[in-house]
């Protein structure tokens, strides 16, 4: 099949672009090397909607950050994604650095960030009593927010899929060539795909994909910039109520402390440039470093309440700017590369920008029956007892709690499995429902979730994975397969 557009990468950028393109009459396909959407940078980040005061004035990054931030309320309402504008604070702890807050304020105003305010020490402490005793002042941005990064990406992809966009998982791009008719031939481990237009939204691999088609003097090198994080128990999720940043440095926005939209506390990230594009391992030094840094700005951090730590890779490029546009000498090949922070915040605006670009280039026409909304996996916790009982009567699976830490029922897991682009692995279920994301970290629910995946998808236990590929949970039956009764 000849596609009009192929998008490489089903992270938050690729999914946003896919959703945007699904508004138009076009055959669109997303190729993803992993088994699910949201498997790279999109799944391991600060889960923050940035206000937009940090990016250089006049940059594309600044523009898309502020635009993405503005779009977030409507998008999250339409797609049923948890989002909260909790406000962010950049905290100054050295008197001599106070002018830096003013610089940041000025930059924010230039970028079009609304409602910025410089707070005195006293004002800052009143808003956030657990700030460091050394606080000298803070920049307050009421438009800063917190979001579920999984749900943002999944919701946009799902909505795109409902509107006709194909998704091909476990499909890794190996080579791209243009034929004499100007069509792109994309060779993958799963056969060849042909399309008129290509969008490169491959995250830390966006340089590799770009370099497959670009001129010799136009190469991009994406440097994976690793960030370690710690996630803390919900018990201490209200240690701060705003997102607390240190003052930024040239390595980024520094180690933040923030509640998450689900009520945990997140601390991170570090910033370490590495070579390995899959190098998502945490290190003892990294974790120790981030604990030390976080303690500079927030006091009495309850680090004993860590429930998990993880690392994500930002797709950093030396210019520290988003690279979005047609590749020189490769007509109809659009880069969406070097999307590092604030990429999550910017994603709706990135989708809009690339969508508009392709609409104009391709002369796309709108679909008459485009579906703009989508419902998330239902969270019965928001229901009254009567409504919940009504639900359980209709579907008893909602009465069966599988993950007790997060109180997730079988009904929610079934919904996650059977919806468009449904979950096929433990992590897929986890990111759609939060089952296994709580304080016991799936110790109790993973055997139960495996049983559901086995039953619903007809997978053998041995075939069930944590997150696709070779991440199988169990290896074989005990007793050497005897009585292969399952």
């Amino acid at each position: 099949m000849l596609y009009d557009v192929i998008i490489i990468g089903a992270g938050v950028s690729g999914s946003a672009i896919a959703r945007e393109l699904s508004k138009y009459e076009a055959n669109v396909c997303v190729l993803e090397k992993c088994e699910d959407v949201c498997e790279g940078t999109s799944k391991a980040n600060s889960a923050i909607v940035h206000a937009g005061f940090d990016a250089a004035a006049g940059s594309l990054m600044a523009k898309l950050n502020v635009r993405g931030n503005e779009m977030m309320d409507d998008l999250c309402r339409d797609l049923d994604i948890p989002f909260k504008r909790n406000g962010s604070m950049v905290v100054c702890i050295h008197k001599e650095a106070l002018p830096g807050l003013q610089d940041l304020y000025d930059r924010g105003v230039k970028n079009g960030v609304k409602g910025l305010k410089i707070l005195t020490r006293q004002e800052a402490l009143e808003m956030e009593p657990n700030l460091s005793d050394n606080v000298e002042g803070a920049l307050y941005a009421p438009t800063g927010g917190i979001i579920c990064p999984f749900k943002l990406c999944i919701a946009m992809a799902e909505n795109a899929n409902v509107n006709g966009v194909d998704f091909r998982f476990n499909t890794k791009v190996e080579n791209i060539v243009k034929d004499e008719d100007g069509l792109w031939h994309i060779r993958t481990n799963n056969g060849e795909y042909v399309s008129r237009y290509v969008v490169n939204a491959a995250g830390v691999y966006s340089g590799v994909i770009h370099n497959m088609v670009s001129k010799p003097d136009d190469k991009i090198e994406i440097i994976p910039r690793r960030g370690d994080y710690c996630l803390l128990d919900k018990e201490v999720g209200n240690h701060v109520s705003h997102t607390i940043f240190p003052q930024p440095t040239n390595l980024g926005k520094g180690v933040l402390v923030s509640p998450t939209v689900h009520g945990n506390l997140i601390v991170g990230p570090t910033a370490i440039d590495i070579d390995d594009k899959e190098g998502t391992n945490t290190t003892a030094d990294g974790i120790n470093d981030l604990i030390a840094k976080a303690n500079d700005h927030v006091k009495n951090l309850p680090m004993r309440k860590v429930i998990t730590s993880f690392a994500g890779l930002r797709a950093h490029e030396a210019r520290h700017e988003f690279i979005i546009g047609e590749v020189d000498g490769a007509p109809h090949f659009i880069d969406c590369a070097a999307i590092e922070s604030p990429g999550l915040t910017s994603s709706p605006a990135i989708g809009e920008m690339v969508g508009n670009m392709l609409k104009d280039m391709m002369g796309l026409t709108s679909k008459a029956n485009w579906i703009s909304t989508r419902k998330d996996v239902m969270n019965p916790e928001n229901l009254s007892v009567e409504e919940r009982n009504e639900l359980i009567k209709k579907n008893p699976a909602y009465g069966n709690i599988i993950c007790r830490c997060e109180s997730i029922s079988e009904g929610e897991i079934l919904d996650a499995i059977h919806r468009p682009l449904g979950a096929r692995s433990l992590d897929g279920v986890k990111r759609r429902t939060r089952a296994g994301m709580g304080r016991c970290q799936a110790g109790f629910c993973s055997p139960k979730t495996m049983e559901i995946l086995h039953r619903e998808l007809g997978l053998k236990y041995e075939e069930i994975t944590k997150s696709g590929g070779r991440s199988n949970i169990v290896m074989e039956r005990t007793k050497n397969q005897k009585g292969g009764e399952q």
Partner: protein
Amino acid sequence: MLNYDIVIVGGGPAGLAAAVAARNAGVDKILILERDKELGGILNQCIHNGFGLHTFKEELTGPEYAYRFIEKVLNAKIEYKLNTMVMDISNDRVVTAMSREDGMYQIKAGAVILAMGCRERPRGALNIPGYRPAGIFSAGTAQRLVNIEGYMPGREVVILGSGDIGLIMARRMTLEGAKVKVVAELMPYSGGLKRNIVQCLDDFGIPLKLSHTVVDIEGKEHLTAVTIAAVDNKGKPIPGTEERYTCDTLLLSCGLIPENELSRNAGVEMSPITSGPVVNESLETNIPGVFACGNVLHVHDLVDYVSEEADRAGQNAAKFVKGELSEGAADIEIVATEGARYTVPSTINVDRMDDKLTVRFRVGAVYKDSFVSVYFDDERVMHNKKRIMAPGEMEQVILLKDKLAEKPGLKKITVKIENE
């Protein structure tokens, strides 16, 4: 709303024994709420033997021990509900539960017995650096997969933590054909029972490396290797001592945490040491009529002690609903210090206590040829020599009501470990 005299949250060894005791004490309407599909709790997956030496004077396996109590519950026709999750307990003893069949419903309880047990400390809480591939399990999760579901997580195994479940799983995986390469323990002593070290490790030539921890985890999709290193006396890895083990499975047996989310939400006062409720001589929490027993109260070493404790909780809950548990604040505080980490219970109201009161505690380090001492205010009244005490094993002292009655005005009982 349903009404029961006693609602017991959890149908494991603690809940079962409490139910039987309450019935024997004459309580009619008792309800056990169990989240799993059968009674017995975690004992069902503990298929090894060694349970019940104190209670039944014979060595039973976990499922057999559980069944002894299940039978009593069945014979006494005590009501129970399976596949039922307790969602909330209020401070006026309204229990909200949910299941497929019954939906969400509330029960007004004359008394509540907390018997939810404990859970394992997961990898995340241990801050082990490295990748996060498949192949890393808490030992109990692996135990369930192997013993109940009948699946092998892998063939080459490293175990971190020498708690009993870790030791038991070392043998279990070995018997099922896996190669257990090493057990690493952060502390300079094992948290497990001696018997398990001998029969689960020594018998199979599995090395136990004390004062070692995992410092790296390799494998992007599935676990491929772990690196362990020796640690100094502060628990920090010592550079240069790293040893790499290729493996496909890492089991973690690094401590158990009482599962007290429900208790906390109900307003039950918690001990920061045990992570369990603070209880008085009747095993009653700060909320009148809410009792606790078993591993939700404090993590036990032997199930026999769980059953015994639960028996007391059941009897006291029965007294409470019959109005036989006199009111009145605690008059004596029990303080654990100098080597004793905590005591259960932590207060006594002499009027309410039985003739004998067993006070259980754990020590914070290994003590050889030391004394367990009990002070009534400043006067030492007990001084028992012990050849060995270790953090993995519970200790106890028994207080006699007669002796306490001889000391009117006694405010504080201190339990401590002394060299001489």
